C-alpha cells in the first residue's frame, strides 16, 4: 500500500533541482529579452519617451520591409532545398546495412560540428571567380568569362543548404526509422507502385520528422549571420546583419531592439505554424 508514493519518490527528483538553471535563465535570458522589448517601445535612445515610433519606422520603411521579406524568402528556399536533398539521404539510410549507415550518419554529422566559419569559407573557395565551378566550366570550354556565383542569392541558398542539411536529415532519419516496413510491402502488394507508395504512404507517415526538420532548418537558415554575410557579401542584406549594423555601427539601440523583436516574432510565428502542423500530422501519421 505504501509502495506507490515510495516508488514515485525514488524514480523522480524534486523540481528544486531545476531552480538554479531557472534562476540563471530568469536573470540572463528572460530579463535581457524583457529589457530589449522595453527599449523597443521608446522613441529615443535614452529610453525616456514611450512610443511605437521604432515599429512604425520599420513597418513603413520599404527598405526594412524588403530586408524582412528577403530573409523569410531565403529561409523558405533553403528549407525546400534541404528537404528535397535530405529526404533521399534518410531514405537511403534505411536501405543500407549497419556499416554504411554509420558512414552516412557520420557524413551528415560532421558538418554540424565543424565550425560554421570553416564551412562558409569552403563555399567562398568553391564559388569564387577562380573556384572549382568556374575553373571546371572554363576548362571544359562551356564559359569564357567566370560566372558570378559568390555574392548571389543562388550562392547563399546553396551554401546555407549545405551548412544546415544535418538539421533536416537527422529528424528525417529518426522519423523514417519509426515507420513499420510492412506498410511499404503492404502498399506495394496491394498494387501501388513505388512512387505512389512513397507519396501516399512513406511521406505522410514521416510528416512529424519533415516538420521537425523544416522548423530547425528554417530557424537556423534565417539567423545564419556568418554564412549570409560572407557568401552574400555587402549587396545582400538580411535581418541579422541589419540588426547588427543598427546596434553596433550606428549605435541605434531602440531601433535595433525593434528589429530584434520583429525578427523574434517572425521566427516564433514560423515555429508555431510548423508546431501546429506537427500536432495535426501526428494525429494523421500516428508516429
Amino acid at each position: 500500500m505504501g509502495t506507490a508514493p515510495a516508488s514515485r519518490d525514488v524514480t523522480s527528483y524534486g523540481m528544486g533541482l531545476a531552480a538554479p538553471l531557472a534562476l540563471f535563465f530568469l536573470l540572463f535570458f528572460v530579463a535581457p529579452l524583457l529589457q530589449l522589448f522595453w527599449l523597443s517601445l521608446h522613441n529615443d535612445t535614452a529610453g525616456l519617451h514611450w512610443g511605437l515610433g521604432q515599429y512604425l519606422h520599420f513597418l513603413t520603411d520599404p527598405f526594412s520591409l524588403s530586408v524582412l521579406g528577403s530573409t523569410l524568402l531565403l529561409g523558405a528556399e533553403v528549407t525546400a532545398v534541404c528537404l528535397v536533398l535530405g529526404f533521399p539521404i534518410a531514405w537511403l539510410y534505411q536501405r543500407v546495412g549497419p556499416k554504411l549507415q554509420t558512414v552516412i550518419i557520420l557524413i551528415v554529422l560532421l558538418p554540424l560540428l565543424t565550425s560554421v566559419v570553416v564551412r562558409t569559407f569552403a563555399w567562398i573557395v568553391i564559388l569564387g571567380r577562380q573556384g572549382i565551378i568556374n575553373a571546371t566550366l572554363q576548362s571544359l570550354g562551356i564559359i569564357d568569362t567566370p560566372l558570378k556565383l559568390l555574392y548571389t542569392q543562388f550562392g547563399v541558398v546553396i551554401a546555407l543548404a549545405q551548412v544546415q542539411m544535418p538539421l533536416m536529415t537527422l529528424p528525417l532519419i529518426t522519423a523514417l526509422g519509426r515507420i513499420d516496413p510492412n506498410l511499404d510491402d503492404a502498399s506495394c502488394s496491394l498494387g501501388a507502385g513505388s512512387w505512389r507508395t512513397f507519396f501516399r504512404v512513406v511521406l505522410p507517415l514521416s510528416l512529424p520528422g519533415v516538420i521537425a526538420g523544416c522548423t530547425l532548418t528554417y530557424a537556423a537558415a534565417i539567423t545564419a549571420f556568418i554564412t549570409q554575410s560572407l557568401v552574400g557579401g555587402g549587396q545582400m542584406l538580411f535581418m541579422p546583419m541589419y540588426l547588427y549594423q543598427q546596434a553596433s555601427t550606428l549605435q541605434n539601440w531602440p531601433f535595433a531592439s525593434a528589429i530584434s523583436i520583429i525578427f523574434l516574432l517572425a521566427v516564433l510565428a514560423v515555429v508555431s505554424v510548423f508546431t501546429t502542423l506537427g500536432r495535426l500530422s501526428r494525429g494523421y501519421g500516428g508516429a
Partner: protein
Amino acid sequence: MAGRKRTLEAFSFELVMTLIAIIALILIIAPSLVVLIVSFTSGFSLKFPPPGYSLRWYAELWDAWQLHFAAKNSLIVALWATGLSVALGVAAALAISRSQALSARLLDSLFMSPLVLPALAFGLAALMLFSLVGLPVSPLTLVIGHTVVCVPYVVRNTVAALAQLEPTLLESSAVLGASRLYTFRRIVLPLIRPGIIAGAFIAFMSSFDNVPVSLFLRDAATDMLPIRMWQDLEGKLDVTIAALSGVLIIATVALVAVMERVTGLSRRLTN
C-alpha cells in the same frame, strides 16, 4: 507485362532516390575536402586545384600569434561555458525529465528556446542589460552568454538519457536499502554518463564556434577565434585561414571519432 512495368517503375524510383542521396552526400562532404586540399597549396591564392603542394601555410600558422591568442580565448570560454552548462543542465534535466507537471513542461520549453531564437537578438539584449546594471563586458559576460545558448544541448541529451533509464532499477536499488544519493552515484550517473558527455561535447563545440553572442559580449581585449577568422575573411582571402580550417576540420573529425566510441553519438542524435 504488368510485372515488368512494376519492376521498371520500382527501378526508376530507387534510381532517382539513390542518385539524389549520393549527390546530397557529396554536397555535404565536398566543401570540407576542398578546404583540406587547398590548405596544402604551395601558391598564394585559394585556386583549386592548387598549383603544387606544401606545408608552408601550416608553418605560417605556427607563427600567427593573433590566431593563437584568439584560439586560447575561445578555448577558455568554451571550457567554462561547458562546465557551467553541465552543472546547471544536468540538475535541471533530473528535475524535469520524469515530471508530467505543467511547470516541468514550461521549464523544458524555456530551456530549449535559445535553440530557435536568433542568437544575435539575445546577444544584443544581454549587452543592453549588462550595461544597464553596470557590468562591463568581459570574459565573465562571455561565459554567461555562451552558457545560455549552450545549456539546451546538455539538457536535451541528459533528458533523453534519463528517459531510457528503467525506473525498476531505481526501485530495486531503494528496496535493497540504498540511499537516494548512493543510487544516483552508483546507478543513475553511470547509466546517463554517455548522454551527459554527448551533450557537453555538442555544447563545447557550439560555444567554441559561437559568433553572434560573442560579437556583443566580448571586450576589445578578448579576441575570439571564429570572429577573428570571420573578420580576416571579410578583408582578404588569406591562405593561412585555409590552414587553420584544415586544423579545425581534422580536430573535429578526431573528436567525433572519439565521441562515437565513448557515447555512440550518432545513435543519440537519430533515435
